[in-house]
């Protein structure tokens, strides 16, 4: 329940369904967009922009997972497989057919969506962890197919992928890619934000809360589940395509199963079932990864007996413990804390 400041009332239906309810929030939104598109590129160097780019791509992927898991309640541990499919579709079209970004990006989304449809088929009869297992099996099968794809995917060698070119301008630097990625992730956020307010978004929530009750109320739950899977995989395909064009080179090692688990875990840490939660999760995920990169040399110095892979093991332990701690102590995630903070500001000086 979104709390509004005292004295703000909805007097028309238009006010009731508005996304931006008060001038203050509109101002905040404009400030945020100004920060993303003007202030950040001016003050940040290429390294920070690189982090922001990865965060932007992660936000797109996380939004898709949030629609599937957070809103529709279907647990997916195969999210990275969808991202891999998007990446490889882009790379194959770019490498073998010489297509440009404006053509590979929608194709990657379509192919991923189609695959999402196939993966969704078992969800007619199963739920809960059975879906988790089937998506995990799907991950293994996808990676296996990519590895044994012969000339099409080049197996373990990976594929190059061209940088996006628009109107003769090649997006070959971090700074140029930054604008493309941020524009697409803002667009993706707006789409997700509106999607969950539609009939289908509310249907997803009904299926998540109790699918039998949802069916009794006349919802076609199979169709809703399939839709959620398709939308999720389309977001993942978009993220994967961007990722491939951003890196310029993809290999199958960039898509391990463990990343799917991190996506799922950091979605929980961010807060499932809310758009801002997905964004918090994506930012937190990549920032913690950066913290680990910064502290890894110090850990290496403090414990000289550890090798490089030992430090990698430390990352796994840290992420795993973080996820478990959030599950046990704050299952509603960072977003819940954020909302509490916000509402206490709005209601100040009253306690509630």
């Amino acid at each position, binding site marked *: 329940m979104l709390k509004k400041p005292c004295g703000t009332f909805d007097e028309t239906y238009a006010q009731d369904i508005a996304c931006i309810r008060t001038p203050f929030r509109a101002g905040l939104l404009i400030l945020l967009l100004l920060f993303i598109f003007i202030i950040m590129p001016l003050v940040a160097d290429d390294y920070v922009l690189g982090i922001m780019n990865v965060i932007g791509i992660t936000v797109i992927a996380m939004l898709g997972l949030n629609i599937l898991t957070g809103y529709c309640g279907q*647990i997916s541990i195969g999210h990275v497989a969808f991202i891999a499919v998007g990446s490889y579709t882009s790379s194959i079209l770019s490498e073998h057919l010489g297509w440009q970004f404006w053509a590979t990006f929608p194709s990657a989304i379509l192919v991923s969506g189609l695959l999402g449809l196939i993966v969704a088929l078992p969800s007619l009869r199963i739920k809960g*962890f059975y879906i988790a*297992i089937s998506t995990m099996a799907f991950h293994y099968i996808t990676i*296996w197919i990519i590895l044994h794809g012969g000339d099409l995917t080049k197996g373990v060698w990976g594929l190059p992928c061209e940088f996006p070119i628009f109107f003769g301008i090649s997006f070959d630097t971090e700074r140029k890619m930054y604008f493309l990625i941020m524009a697409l992730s803002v667009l993706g956020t707006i789409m997700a934000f509106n999607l969950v307010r539609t009939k289908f978004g509310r249907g997803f929530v009904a299926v998540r809360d109790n699918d039998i*009750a949802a069916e009794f109320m006349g919802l076609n739950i199979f169709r809703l589940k399939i839709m959620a899977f398709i939308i999720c995989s389309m977001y993942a395909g978009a993220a994967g395509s961007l990722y491939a064009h951003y890196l310029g080179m993809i290999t199958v090692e960039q898509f391990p199963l*463990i990343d799917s688990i991190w996506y799922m875990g950091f979605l929980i840490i961010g807060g499932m079932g809310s758009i801002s939660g997905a964004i918090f999760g994506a930012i937190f995920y990549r920032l913690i990864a950066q913290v680990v990169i910064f502290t890894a040399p110090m850990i290496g110095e403090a414990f000289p007996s550890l090798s490089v892979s030992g430090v990698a093991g430390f990352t*796994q332990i840290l992420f795993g*413990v973080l996820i*478990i701690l959030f599950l*046990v102590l704050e299952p509603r995630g960072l977003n819940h804390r954020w909302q509490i903070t916000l509402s206490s500001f709005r209601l100040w000086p009253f306690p509630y």
Partner: protein
Amino acid sequence: MAFFLQLVVSGFLTGSVYALMALGIVIIYKASSVFNFAHGSIVAFTAYLIWHLMVNLHLHIIFAVIISLPVIIIIAYLIQRLILYPLTGQPPLAAIMATLALAEVVNGAITLFWPGPARTYPKFLPTGTIQIGTVFITLEEIVNFIICGLAFTGFMLFFQKSKLGLTMRGTAEDHQLARSEGVKVNRIFVLAWFIAIIMAGIGGFLMANMHGVNQEPLIALGMKSLAVVILGGMESILGAVIGGIAIGLLEALGAGYLDPLVGGGVEEVFPFIILVIILLIKPYGLFGYKRIERV
């Protein structure tokens, strides 16, 4: 025909190890309705632990096993007390993610403590090959099969005859009823984890003895036992046995006949293809209970 028989026999023998590991998942699921995704990592961890005791501390195999038992009890208690007990009553996603995160913690611990390439156990079993008709079987495979059979029989005797085993079965049926009879349900959960980790440990030890102590294949092995459990049915011990042997057979046959067609590596992915097919056709497995849900 000789090739077929060879595949059947080796598939059967591998399948017995799968069955043992699947049993671990089934025990935990029956007792506490938690599906243990961390099984593969625990398999790898116990294999590494025994390797550490045997090679770095120069212990005899029997002492290594005896010393690893209290470690397993402590791990089982910590998992239950710190992770799963606070999550009681949460949606299923919480338990799934908790075991997945646990798997990664264990994996991280393995890379932290035992980095680097694969290891091998010192040889303690006789090596050699015996020939029956046209089929070749290594002695190690036979010993593996016998150990699996013994472990299985031991567990079944414990589960069917002993008082503690009966208490476990009662707890699996109904937590509240068991509690009203004075059963400490949380202790039973710890016991279930303890037995499951032992089963995982035996399976992991046997496989590592044949193929070397290596993190990735051992984890993959645990993941394959997920396919076994789904095929057999989540709640069925008999299903774990039949599913294990069936997956072992299908994997061996699929690898034997399909590998030349697609260029190798079929056995890595074949169990998962079977898994998806089962989920499409018979989602609750061969012997699983069909759940009836009410709103």
